[in-house]
């Protein structure tokens, strides 16, 4: 149902949507049943002149069953939801797939700074590309993100990824995502962070591998671009692996 509002742009968005749907079906079933029964009872037993109410204690075994049976059924539904929840939670927050690329996300009042690996493919080196309020990602690459905050709590939320993670000052929190859809969408801060909280929008831009590489090349200063020898070395390596 969520895809009706926002596309699924990460590998795990589908799982979260599916869990959402399962809960929706179970909840709507119980909700409709209970509300319909409630309205039926209210309508059927409305006061009519001359008619007395019945004396029912709710203490006999049979009467208690009227409440107990539905609650065992609800418990069963809870177990289904729990099982599926654990699978989804494991996929999104616990399992850390081997990354193809890394990105560092730094939040502060009231902007996001994103550090992308430069042409050397390594984060934390001199050629990292820092951008303000623009996260550039390569489609289908498996990312590990390192989330930190310079001042107060923020929350890194990309609704199209179905992803949210608080940024806690003093900690670096790691997580993962894999963008699967090209395009450009909102990033929001989801934790109250002061006056500018409502005005700290950022964008995530997901491009094809070629476009992304071109963006990286364009944003790397000339003196940091790999020298010819390095580039040749790389292309030789590639050839060797293709042949092998």
């Amino acid at each position, binding site marked *: 149902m969520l895809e009706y509002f926002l596309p699924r742009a990460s590998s795990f968005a589908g*799982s979260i949507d599916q869990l959402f749907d399962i809960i929706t079906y179970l909840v709507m079933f119980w909700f409709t049943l209970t509300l319909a029964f409630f309205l039926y009872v*209210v309508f059927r037993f*409305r*006061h009519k002149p001359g008619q007395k*109410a019945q004396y029912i204690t709710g203490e006999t075994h049979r009467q208690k069953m009227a*409440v107990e049976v539905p609650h065992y059924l609800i418990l069963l539904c809870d177990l289904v939801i729990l099982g599926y929840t654990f699978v989804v939670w494991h996929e999104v927050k616990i399992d850390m797939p081997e990354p193809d690329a890394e990105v560092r996300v730094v939040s502060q009042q009231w902007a996001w700074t994103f550090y992308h690996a430069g042409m050397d493919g390594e984060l934390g080196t001199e050629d990292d590309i820092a951008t303000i309020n623009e996260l550039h990602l390569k489609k289908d690459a498996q990312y590990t993100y390192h989330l930190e905050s310079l001042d107060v709590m923020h929350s890194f939320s990309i609704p199209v990824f179905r992803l949210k993670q608080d940024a*806690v*000052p003093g900690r670096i929190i790691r997580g993962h995502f894999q963008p699967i859809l090209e395009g450009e969408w909102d990033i*929001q801060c989801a934790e109250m962070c002061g006056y500018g909280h409502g005005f700290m929008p950022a964008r995530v831009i997901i491009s094809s591998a070629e476009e992304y590489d071109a963006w990286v090349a364009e944003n790397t200063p000339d003196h940091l671009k790999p020298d010819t020898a390095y580039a040749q070395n790389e292309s030789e390596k590639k050839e060797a692996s293709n042949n092998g």
Partner: protein
Amino acid sequence: MANTASATASVGHDEEHGHSESFWSKYCFSTDHKIIGFQYLFTGMAMGVIGGFFSYVFRMHLAFPGSSVPFFGVVSPAAYNSLVTNHGTIMIFWVAMPVLVAALGNFLIPLMIGCDDMVFPKINRLSYQVFLISAIVLICSFFVPQGGFGGAWTSYPPLSSNPQYNGTPFGAPMWLIAVTLEIIAFLLGGINFITTLMNARAKGMRLYDIPMVVWMIVIASILFMASVGPLVAGSVMLLFDQTLGTTFFDPAAGGDPVLWQHLFWFFGHPEVYVVLLPAMGVVAEIICTFSRKKLFGYKMILYSSIGLGILSFFVWAHHQFISGVDPRATYLFTTTTLLISIPVAIMLFAFIGTLWGGSIRFTTPMLFALAFIAEFLIGGVTGIWLGSSGTDIYLHDTYFVLAHFHYTFVPIAIIGTFAAIYYWFPKMFGKMLSERWGKIHFWGTVIPFNGIFLPLFILGAAGQHRRIAGYTAYPDLYTENFQDLRVFATSSLIVLILFQIPFFVNFIVSLKRGKKAGNNPWKANTLEWVATSPAPHGNFGGNLPEVYRGPYEYSVEGREEDYWPQNEPSK
């Protein structure tokens, strides 16, 4: 032991002292539990008007961003944050708590258990005085330089602990002092509720003869006392961080900001049940009276509420699924959270069981009680999406949470309170409220309430986050369709606010010119209806009632009357 309090004041106040009281001693410094109940009620209602006004201002801003809001002006981001923060704080701590726990508890407990006052009347008076001071401190905090606190009602540090970050060097500590004082007030009140119930019950009243609403208020008070310790500790630590430069929550100097969240939510989640249970109790009383039925499964409901209370201590981290705590902790907290559906479902099913086979009268209090069940059902079931950590990743801090929260809290604090006021008004003031105006007020409250919050589920599912002052900054979510929903929600709020006018007019006019109520206008069983309306100081005029049966013996076979008061001896 049963009548400890009765020894002190078994006759009316005037007879006891041989003088008539001045306005001040009667209404402002009284130790009479009913007067203290009224003080809480009226203070709570006044604060509700302030909190309601705040919601009007920020909802207008969301519907028409940037334009001037009538009676307020243009809403700045700082003002927006302060409005949402204080709306939340006021509605929970200065409306729901005083009205549902303190006002009802004070007014009802001694009357319903058949004693003449609380066991510690002076502590009771002190409790209200501290509460009043807390309200004054909070209101003053809006007017200090740099304005009131705007770091959300959850007040997460380091934003809340450091004036450099929150920009409110006076507003933030005052907000915190106000909350702490308010908590102290309720601790004082809770001591009375628990002790009074245990020691001052009418002769013959066994534990299972206690009316459900009294049980619920007392269980809520026990929950409050057991959960509030960590918050008081946290508040003092936060206050020290704000004012003395300690670093309990400052990671730069070895503190931990997540610690506050644990302390806060260890209190914050049981707090929901602290206000839920009294409202559930009110509904139990009303549906029994107006369907002329015995409460279905009295013990089942009682034990469910105790189970709910115990479970509520093991769910706090479901507010922190994505806060950076160890992700494995989620497995435990998702499980305990989903288990909460069981006791809540038992209570709701038992209420429906009570209606089954009844002879239902649609009086105004009954309509509110029935609406409570239907609306709270929505609040209850939507909790499942949020209790499941898998979907919480997406829904956390969106309008979905907000809608869910209001579908639990509005039935509790608004619908439940109105049900209680319409039901006990005759006992409080000796007059009947107008039924016709009551019904207009009912429909004008319940229908627009859904108009406000149903659209917010959609906005939340679409990924819109709460507490965001300017949605124009987010192109994906500032679309025509979503803006229409925001305007619809705001319009519904205005309709709801306008329909509160009939209530206030009805209240004041009925107080002066309402029909005389008589002692037991609803033909109910519980002991408060034995006292005269309004009940005098000392409640029962020196003749404390004796109890012979449970509170819900309606439509007993072989009896001509369809009710059987608790104090009427069996023949």
